C-alpha cells in the first residue's frame, strides 16, 4: 500500500543523464573493450562449466559412498558366513563327543581357515581393482 509521501516521490521529476553523456561515456570506454582471449578464463568463469564441475564432484562423491557401502556389506556377509562355519564346527565337535580341548582346537582351525579364505578373497578383490586401473 503506497502512502502520499511515496506517491509524491514517484510523481517527482526524475533526473536523467544529459544528452551528451552517452556519446562521452561510450567514446571513453568503447576503445577499451578487448576480446578476452584467455580460453582458460572463459571456461573458468563460465556458469555452465562451474555447474558441470559441481555435478562431477557430487557424482564422484556419490559413487565413492555407494562403493564403500557395498564393500562394507560384502565384509559383513563374509563375517556372518565365518561365524556360521565356526558354530557348525563347534556343534559337530560337541555331537561327536570330542573333549573340550579338541573341540576348541578344531574351532581355532576353522577360524583360521575362514580368515585365510576371507583374506584371499580380499586380496583377489584388490588385485582385480589394481588391474582395472
Amino acid at each position: 500500500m503506497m502512502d502520499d509521501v511515496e506517491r509524491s516521490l514517484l510523481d517527482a521529476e526524475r533526473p536523467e543523464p544529459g544528452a551528451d553523456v552517452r556519446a562521452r561515456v561510450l567514446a571513453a570506454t568503447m576503445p577499451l573493450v578487448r576480446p578476452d582471449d584467455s580460453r582458460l578464463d572463459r571456461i573458468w568463469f563460465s556458469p555452465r562449466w562451474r555447474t558441470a564441475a559441481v555435478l562431477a564432484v557430487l557424482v564422484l562423491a556419490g559413487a565413492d559412498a555407494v562403493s564403500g557401502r557395498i564393500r562394507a556389506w560384502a565384509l559383513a556377509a563374509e563375517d556372518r558366513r565365518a561365524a556360521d562355519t565356526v558354530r557348525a564346527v563347534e556343534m559337530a565337535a560337541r555331537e561327536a563327543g570330542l573333549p573340550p580341548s579338541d573341540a576348541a582346537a578344531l574351532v581355532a582351525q576353522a577360524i583360521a581357515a575362514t580368515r585365510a579364505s576371507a583374506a584371499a578373497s580380499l586380496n583377489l578383490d584388490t588385485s582385480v581393482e589394481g588391474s582395472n586401473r
Partner: protein
Amino acid sequence: MTKTPSPLVISSGVRGARDDHRDAMSLRRLVRGNRDALADLYDAHAASLFRHGFALTRSRPDAEDLVQAVFLKLATTGAPLLAVRNPANYPHRILRAAWIDARRRPAAQFEEPAGADADSPALDCHDAAEAAIDVDAAVARLPAAQREIVALHLIEGFSFREAGRITGVSMFTAASRYRVALERLRQMMGRR
C-alpha cells in the same frame, strides 16, 4: 528450451522492465570484444544508474562520472563478467563501489549536501508544520544511504533483498532504512 525475459517484480508500483537474459547475453558479447554490447548495456541501464548516482551524490556531474566509472569497469573486466549472476544489480554494485572509492580519496570529490547527516535528527513535527518543503528538497536532506534505498526500491523497483545486495546490507536493514527515510520525509514535508 528458450528463456523468456522475466518482467521485473515491482514492489513499489513503478513500471519498468528488466531482462536478465538480454543483459547476460550483452555481457557475454562484451567478453568476446563486441563494442556494441557496451552501447546496449548503456541504453538499458544508464538512466537507472544515473539516478542511483544522483541519489548518492546529489550532483549531476558526479553522477555522470559514476556512470562513466561503471562502463569503464564493464569495458575492462573481461571474462569474470561471465560469472555475473544478477546482471541488473551488477552495474549498481559497481557504481556504489566507485562512489565509495571516490569518497575515500584524500580530496573527496563527493560531498554530502548541507543538512544531510545520518545522526542529525529530522525536523520535528513542530518545525515541519511551519516549514513544509517540497519533496526534492526533503530528499536532499536525507543521508545518502537513505536517499539511495529510496531511489533503488521506490524509483528503480528493486526489492529490499536486491537493494540490500547492491548496498551491502541485509534485506532487513534495507527495509528499515527505507522506513526511516519515509518517516523523515513525512515529517519534513509536514504530513502525518
